[in-house]
């Protein structure tokens, strides 16, 4: 007797609101064949505010509310941490190699960059904690499943070594220890620059998680562009050849991989183009490309090196901000959580029925 109307979803539409017309059976995916508008009535923003209308999108949600929680990480603390850690990491590598290859000026600049960057990054990281006084709890356990735990065991020796190296570089003490410290810092420099990609990717934030293979390369490339750029700017041009090469290569890698991030992941690539993160990333690309170009064209001149270095550093910084903001945006809109998961489910149902969720 109930036949005919209890087939899943037959005719249900979201009720309420004064705008109940034209509900959609608009299949974004070929799931159950029923999609309501999401976000018809978003949450009211404060007392007396009006009810914002989210534009029509073809998926279902709970009053347009996000499904996952957007990260509570603060801006600019965390993007700055990412930037500084990257620049410091790549500089440490450069510094050690410059030392070995006998480039004292570059060595000195790189060590100072690495040391200064690492100390500053630690400051920003601690500042971002809800309970900064408990920073040392980071070393309470060592968890391979936690990029931040592993990151802490990278950052701690790195910042100790790079900081100490920079300090003795400035004070001129213990020259032998310098080389050892520099080597230790160089050893952790690469992981420090790239683990942050894992840090972001290893979350449920759609636009961070989807490009999880690319993000370490983006951050690695960006780190080299920044480290190369900064050292190039402060090193006599004669010794700064490695900086220029690393910067240009890093910039090229950054631009190439960011392009893949921006285009290779369907709907979750969207936030990288749109809104504030889109603007930031466009600016980042412009800076990075310009910086690389100036490096090539005018990098051997003092002024050119300074301009190029600044541009590259700015590009790297903007990339971090852009990626950070894109992730935040993707977390705030349930569309980026629901749609890819729906597609995945649909694909699985079409593929092999045995794994359908019960």
């Amino acid at each position, binding site marked *: 007797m109930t036949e005919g109307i209890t087939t899943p979803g037959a005719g249900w539409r979201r*009720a*309420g*609101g*004064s705008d*109940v017309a034209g509900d959609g059976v608009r299949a974004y995916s070929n799931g159950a064949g029923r999609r309501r508008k999401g976000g018809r*009535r978003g949450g*009211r923003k404060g007392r007396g505010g*009006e*009810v914002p209308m989210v534009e029509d999108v073809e998926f279902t949600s709970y009053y347009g509310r996000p499904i996952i929680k957007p990260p509570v990480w603060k801006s600019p603390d965390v993007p700055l941490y990412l930037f500084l850690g990257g620049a410091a990491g790549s500089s440490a590598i450069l510094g050690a190699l410059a030392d070995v290859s006998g480039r004292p000026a570059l060595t000195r600049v790189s060590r100072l960059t690495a040391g200064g960057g690492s100390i500053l990054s630690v400051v920003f990281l601690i500042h971002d904690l809800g309970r900064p006084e408990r920073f040392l709890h980071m070393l309470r356990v060592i968890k391979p499943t936690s990029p931040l735990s592993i990151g802490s065991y990278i950052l701690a020796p790195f910042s100790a070594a790079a900081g100490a190296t920079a300090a003795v570089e400035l004070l001129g003490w213990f020259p032998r220890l310098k080389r050892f410290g520099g080597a230790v810092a160089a050893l952790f420099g690469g992981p420090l620059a790239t683990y942050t990609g894992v840090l972001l990717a290893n979350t449920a934030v759609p636009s961070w998680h989807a490009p999880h293979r690319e993000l370490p390369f983006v951050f690695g490339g960006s780190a080299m562009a920044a480290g190369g750029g900064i050292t190039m700017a402060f090193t006599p041009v004669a010794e700064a050849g490695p900086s220029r090469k690393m910067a240009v290569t890093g910039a090229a890698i950054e631009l190439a991989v960011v392009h893949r991030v921006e285009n290779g992941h369907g709907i979750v690539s969207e936030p990288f183009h749109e809104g504030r993160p889109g603007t930031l990333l466009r600016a980042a690309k412009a800076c990075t490309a310009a910086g690389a170009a100036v490096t090539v064209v005018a990098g051997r001149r003092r002024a050119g090196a300074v301009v190029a270095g600044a541009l590259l550093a700015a590009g790297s910084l903007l990339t971090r901000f852009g990626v950070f903001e894109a992730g935040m945006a993707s977390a705030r809109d349930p569309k980026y959580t629901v749609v890819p998961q729906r597609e995945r489910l649909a694909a699985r149902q079409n593929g092999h029925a045995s794994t359908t969720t019960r």
Partner: protein
Amino acid sequence: MNSDCIVIEGSNMAECHPVAFQWVTEAKARGAKVVHVDPRFTRTSAIADLHVPLRAGSDIVFLGALVNHVLSNDLFFRDYVVAYTNASSIIREEFQDAEDLDGLFSGWDPDSKQYDQASWQYEVEDTPGGGVAEDDPAGAAEQERLSQHESVKDSDQAHASGSGGPPLHGRAKRDETLQHPRCVFQVLKRHFARYTPEMVAEVCGVEPEAFLKVAEWITANSGRERTTAFVYSVGWTQHTVGAQYIRTASILQALLGNMGRPGGGILALRGHASIQGSTDIPTLYNLLPGYLPMPHAVQHQSLDDYTADAAGTGGFWGNKRAYAVSLLKAWWGDAATPENDFCFDYVPKITGDHSSYRTVADMIEGKVAGYFLAGENPTVGHANGRMQRFGLANLEWLVVRDLQMIESASFWQTAPEIETGELVTDQIATEVFFMPAASHVEKDGTFTQTQRMLQWRFKAIEPPGDCRSDLWFYFHLGRILRERLKDSTDPRDRPLLDLTWDYPLHGETQDPSADAVLREINGVGPDGRALSGYLDLKDDGSTTSGCWIYSGVYADEVNQAARKRPGREQGQVASEWGWSWPYNRRVLYNRASADPDGKPWSERKKYVWWDAEAGRWASTGDAVDFEATKPPDYVPPPGAKAQAALSGRDPFVMQSDGKAWLFAPKGVVDGPLPTHYEPAESPVGNALYAVQANPTTEHIQAPYNREAPSSGDVFPYSVTTYRLTEHHTAGAMSRTLPYLSELQPEFFVEVSPELAAERGLENGGWATVVSPRAAIEARVLVTERIRPLRTRGGKVVHQIGAPYHWGEVGISTGDSANDLLPVVMDPNTHIQESKASTVDIRPGRRPRGPELTELLEEYRSRAGIASGRMPVGGRVAVEGT
């Protein structure tokens, strides 16, 4: 839980009684049908199988049509109806029905706006008495005459008749074939003949299909094998014809044979922890404990007057004198003697309606000096909060006892009328004492829950600071008064000085023993031991009992209400948890669960039965609501009195004829049969009769209580007020708590998308709701759970839902929906009509200050209503009733 079908009407059980609703969900899981009849689709509707949206104030048509359906399709439970109801009784020839007089019954007096009920009586057998002995026929007749006195009727007869019907005299003529044209059955049939599914569609806005579905379900689930239950609460009582709503359901349930049987009955869900207790042991002007009426000056100048009506009547009310004397002995102890009429003269006498709203009108006129509010917040919780505030502002002194600061105590600071200038703080003379109260865990005592069960609470901790229990407050107030008067020779002070007022005191704060009070309520016998029940009460002054129906709660010197034997160790009835009056019976009138011969109607619905071998009644666990050894074939001998005058086949032991009353020959002041009248303020005309609204409705005409004309277009929408799960009544116990406030943080109204479109309302936005009494602002929740209803002539009625919890004080604040309501009252109960009145709604917030008054004046003048302007301070006289 034993029901096969549950009709919830006039109640939002899942929201207001969620924990009790678990039993409904269990019945449903076992296959019972659940129907919810309500203007709104609520959380109850969501769980129900069928939600029937009906227009607020039209329930009698819906229920009456069910009665008609049952009668005209011969679906009633004939054996039950013939044996256990008054269907076969014959009514006097003079009786004229509302069908004959277009909405009025015979006996109407247009001047007093009251009925003379003489023509509604049974035609009596020629041999007077029949089997009931009349001790004092003349006295009874005199009482009969006086009972029709205007001021007596004003004073709330239905309640005064207590848990049974009012007394009747003589034995009615009966026609068990139900064919006699004047037998109740035929009268009923004629009366409800026009209550058809089509009429339901026109008046209630309910589709005939939905109606027929309900009819089919309740009839299919009634009879020998199955039972249907009805559940109601204030959705029925808070109407100008509230008592008649319940009467209609009772008629239906009696016809279907669902009374006194497991899974049957009519369940009244009451709103407060001990609101049942507050009527059993009433703080009500017209009642003494145990539903004994408050003596009326015209009727009751002596104890003999007072008990004359009961002297010759059957049923347990026949022992009224014993109950009354035991009460007087409990109160005045040794001072009460047979010689002084047991101090009957000490009891103050009433002379009419002294109910709450009437008293507030008196306050506004400056006729009342002092007012005690004990755990009540009338400026939010009662209809027409503005009237309440004017009342408080015209007192000499006010004592408020509560846990939190409430609007009714701080009205001189926070009343909306301060903002409009109608009240001025430093011109308000009222002296206010806020006396902090103890919470439920800070005192011993019993609550009586909705199914008449008393449960004892043990004191957990001492109350903080100056907080004290009400027991403490009233005991010590009494103590001080008695000390002050101890040298008085004024006879007026004797009632206070002779009062038994010595309870054991405990602890630092000298808290009186609630246990001792409960024992006094139970009563003691001549041997000084606690009585085991009201059958032991005597009218010679040898027994005491503070409330006869509670007698037995302290049987065997044990606090029976404090029994806490775990439910899982007991059967389904769980009769060893707490104590139910009377005599720990859990299902009232359960004799009706067996057929006249004492056999269960069916094995499936077995509950009590006559065990012939043992010579007594047996049951599945409950106490039998019948004399334990009275056999089914008992026939009362001539001269039998009280319960002995009822036969072994009369299950309704509180009624004087032992029958369920399909037709009320007495006691209901607005007619012997339920008749559809529109609410006092209605968006439509009465489709059934020329009489628009209940002719006996009580009004208070005054500037603060203007009423809107029906079917007007200035106030075109119907509004209904209600509660939410997340809050409690006037909010003192919920709006002050963060966890509850955040769940429903703001006052809102619920409207349909259609009305929202019509008036430009936005979900989440503001709206102003205007009635002739007040304009209030609320957030808007646009929802399809509220739907417009199409009534007669295609007229679409929009309904607005307004939860009434909010006021100016607390964590969550807002305007009070009750400010909208008129004070118009059911003449039987003096309960106001909260569930249906008319308003207008417009987008945006309301004006502030004097502009608000102007807006209301503008509305009133447009609607052709007299001015509602109040002088500063608010003292005005009532213009009429």
